């Protein structure tokens, strides 16, 4: 089930403006999800297998579970005094199980090799044969801080296959959750940056705001990290009543306003700005070539956002302002995040204001599939969905077994996974002390890339 707004075509040659976002093998055929950045379009295409072999190892599912992997294709660094500085998996800078190999001659980073899969759980393999609603529990726990993006992405793909036409308001409530998630993640990133710059008072204020958003999540969605609010065919929790919606909007507006005050404090601190400006520059061409997504790409001046490229309901219905910055440095990425908090507040306002009032938890089969008695049409049928998670483009490809209705194939392309190489590239030639800023500004999560 491919939505109508997705173009399907053969590809002859991949040039700069069309990016390979994901590659997966389904039914013995290699397919690719492409992004036409210029026209903000999603393209589904056949991928010649010969080309597929050379494509970066990142996009393919890595099958070695329980072994850590170096994200590197045989880099060689030669020179007097060059050594490898191993960092992680238990380290002070990264609160997760993940590491880096910094190739350096002391202080200056020549090459950065991310080490991932310290906690690869193999969710794509685990869910095969599970019921979609059971799989959902695993999927939304792939990356705890991107949970609502994950669950919405997965559920949308499943509902596409099943042909479930669910209530609009449920979709809108999911979108609200995604925007809330974006706000608290951006606040988290900003807090981490402030902590790295030793701006302790200001950081405490930002962290307090983040805590308030988490409490809003808990109040309206029943869970601080938005686990379990989503279900196939609707939502379990959410701001159902008008009062709740109003309360949510006003709370978020207050937070956004306080945040803008704190940002003004930050931006008047020379110490903070000095650490961020000209740090870890990612030029636009590199960002394009390496396939950066999300705020990292937008910081380098690439105008891409899944809310435009794959406009599922309600994103096709509301105004979305895309924030970009040309500089490509840590400051640019941070500014994009700061502006996105403001724009997400605007989106939330629109969403909660204009939310359709239909019966939320009454899914029905859509007209096109209503004739079929099977859960889905045929066993060749699969569906995919793209969601703009806080760190960027998240892709789920789902295939269900035609008879049992259980999952036959799941492919997740997490945003963090493709952003490792841009991070690595941007840090070349920077010094050790810039590392924390660069790492935090990309907003990467090992849990996300190790799904």
């Amino acid at each position, binding site marked *: 089930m491919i939505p109508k707004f997705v173009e399907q075509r053969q590809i002859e040659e991949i040039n700069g403006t069309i*990016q390979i976002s994901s590659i997966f093998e389904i039914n013995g055929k290699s397919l690719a999800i492409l992004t036409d950045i210029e026209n903000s379009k999603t393209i589904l295409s056949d991928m010649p297998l010969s080309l597929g072999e050379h*494509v970066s190892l990142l996009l393919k599912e890595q099958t070695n579970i329980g072994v850590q992997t170096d994200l590197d294709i045989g880099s060689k660094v030669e020179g007097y005094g060059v*050594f490898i500085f191993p960092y992680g998996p238990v380290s002070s800078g990264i609160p997760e199980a993940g590491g880096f190999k910094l190739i350096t001659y*002391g202080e*200056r980073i020549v090459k950065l090799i991310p080490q991932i899969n310290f906690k690869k759980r193999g969710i794509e393999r685990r869910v095969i044969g599970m019921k979609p609603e059971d799989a959902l529990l695993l999927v939304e726990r792939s990356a705890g801080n991107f949970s609502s993006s994950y669950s919405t992405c997965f559920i949308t793909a499943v509902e596409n296959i099943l042909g479930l036409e669910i209530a609009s308001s449920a979709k809108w409530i999911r979108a609200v959750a995604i925007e809330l998630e974006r706000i608290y993640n951006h606040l988290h990133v900003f807090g981490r940056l402030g902590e790295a710059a030793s701006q302790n008072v200001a950081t405490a204020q930002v962290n307090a705001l983040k805590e308030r958003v988490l409490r809003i999540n808990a109040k309206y969605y029943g869970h601080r990290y938005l686990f379990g609010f989503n279900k196939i065919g609707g939502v379990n929790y959410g701001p159902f009543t008008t009062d709740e919606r109003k309360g949510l909007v006003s709370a978020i507006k207050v937070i956004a306003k306080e945040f803008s005050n704190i940002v003004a404090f930050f931006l008047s601190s020379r110490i903070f700005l000095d650490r961020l400006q000209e740090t870890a520059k990612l030029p636009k061409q590199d960002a394009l070539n390496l396939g950066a997504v999300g705020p990292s790409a937008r910081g380098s001046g690439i105008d891409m956002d899944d809310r435009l490229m794959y406009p599922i309901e309600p994103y096709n219905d509301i105004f979305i302002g895309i924030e970009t910055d040309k500089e490509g440095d840590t400051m640019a990425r941070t500014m994009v995040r700061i502006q996105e908090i403001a724009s997400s507040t605007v989106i939330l306002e629109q969403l909660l204001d204009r939310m359709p009032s239909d019966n939320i938890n009454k899914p029905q089969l859509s007209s096109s599939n209503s004739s079929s008695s099977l859960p889905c049409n045929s066993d060749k049928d699969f569906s995919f969905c793209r969601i703009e998670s806080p760190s960027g483009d998240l892709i789920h490809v789902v295939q269900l077994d035609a008879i049992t209705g259980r999952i036959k194939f799941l492919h997740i392309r997490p945003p963090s996974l493709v952003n490792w190489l841009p991070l690595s590239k941007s840090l070349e030639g920077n010094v050790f002390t810039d590392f924390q800023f660069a790492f935090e500004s990309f907003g990467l999560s090992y849990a996300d890339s190790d799904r």
Partner: protein
Amino acid sequence: MFISFIIGSLIGRISKKVSYFFGIIGSVLGIVLALLVLLTGSSLEFDLWKTTQTSSFEFFVSPFNSYFLLISCFVWLGTCVYSIGYDDEDYTNDLSSLLIFTILSMVVTILSGDSISFLVGWESMTIASFFMILKGKGNADTIRKAAFLFLAFGEVSTVFIMLSFSGIFSSIGNFNFLASSSSAIHASGPLSSWILVTALIGFGLKMGIAPFHMSEWLPIAHSNAPSNASALLSSTLTLMGVYGFINVVVHLGQYELWWGWITLVMGGISALLGSLFASVSEHTKGLPAYSTIENNGLIFVAVGTFILASYYHLTLLGDFALIAALYHAFSHSISKASLFLVMGWISKIKKSFDLNNQNPISKTVRQVGYFPGLFTILSLSAVPPLAGFVSEWMILETLFQSFRFGDIASQIIGTIVGAITALAAGIIIIAMTKAYGFGIIWPEMKDDLETKETKSKIERSKSIKGIFYYFLFLILGIGVAAPVIFLLASNSLSQILHTKVFDSLVTGLLGIPTYFVILSGKPFGGFSPTFTAVFMVCLMIVPVAISRLGDKWRIRRTFGWFGGQTQPSATSSELYNSFSYSTPLRIMLKFLFKTKEKIVEIGGVRRPIILSPEEYFVEVEVLDVFKQIYDTLTKYALSLSFYTAMTVMPGRLGLYLIYIMTAFIFVILYISLIK
């Protein structure tokens, strides 16, 4: 003593061990002689022959030069014993001859009572050292270059010293000013300035004082020489420069203000540059050689303070500054010889002079340098109560008292140089930790290396261990027994300064008995190295007692923490190295080092998201401006001398040089005879 050294140098061709043995006997005799003279205070004179009515060839053992003889003999004793173990089939028999001959000529230099024999000793010392450097291991071309550079600068220094001595001669009318300690040179005006400036340049060249050190003659020359020769050159050859300079300075009766300024500034800059360049040096012997520049700079600073204090008739401060210079010469010579010998031994086993080299060596070999190396670097980084701390404390104390100077310019210069010196003393810690960490206790041990091949090396390491501990004992001794050294230094100066400094500066204080507290002025700071040592030992007793007497469960041995990963092996590319240790300094002080960082990316063609392997090539260079200037100069000078040599005498350049030098010495002798 003479005879012993002469036999030693002659016999070297036949048997190394016997030659070094004679060297040891000579050194022991030298120590005994020097101590006798220093303690009794009487001086001996041997007139060889009269050259003119007023001048004669004479050897002269005064308390002043016997102090330097004492320092040198301590170093020579250690070096000769070390050489017996070190000098093996790698080097020819000539080395021992040259080494003992260098020692002999240094004895001549120190004991000479007249400037002619001083120059004879000075010149033969330079030539012998030149040939000794030629014996070094490594790239033949580099060594030849280094040796010729050494020779060139040695000759320039001789020329300046001759100019200085000629100035003295025209002032007092004889050559024997070195012997007659009582006769101050009563030159005045431009002549005395001439004497001082030429002496400053002449001896400064030997000591590697800025801006002359920037040719790197000292580091290059020393680092390519064999280790025992390096120790000899770096600690005693530069000591000759100190001796000569202090000698000339104390003989000048009246001082100009700007002499003090020049000496202070040159000393301060040398100390700072020496410590900085030592920190970024990657050569097991280049690093200590740069550190020598730093220490000689400190001595210059002390002498500069002496000049300023004397100008203002601050007798006590002046005396203290001079004693500080002498004390520092002592502590530095011993510590530096020790550092060269320990690091030289490890390099020999490692078969590399590169600090970054990761050739693993066995645990037993490595352990011989643990304690001696540790105390040596602690002394050189001025940690109480070791020798280096006492002397650096004394030098900084003199600069603290720069407020006593009469004019504002001297006060400001004194303060700024004080700051620079303190900075240098701080920065040298980087270099010293690097030397210890990467040059002595690095790399990781490998027990499986203790096989047949290294058996002999282990045996030799064990036998050579003793000499390291000899130096360790000396370093501790000079520090803890500081008042004794203070007594010796003040005795050696007593005839020149006509005062007994010891009585006025060494007292008791706050319950510490008399003769244990060194005062740096009245009323000013005081310090008791002996009681600091006692106090520190007492402090150490507590944790040692806890760890020894405590319950068993208190002691737990565990592995290191590597971020959760396993400890990298000795040959792993994940090991931190010496180059990276000092790279932050290279990057931070870009303006000084003229660091060039080049990261060249080879390959790494990127099509959209299709990646190919990347290759990088990294190159970091540290450069200094002075070196460029001197490089150009030496290039022209070398090519000029080369062409001259080829046209005048198309033989072997080395032979030709011997011929020239010998002719030069004989001409000097002849001139002095016919007069």
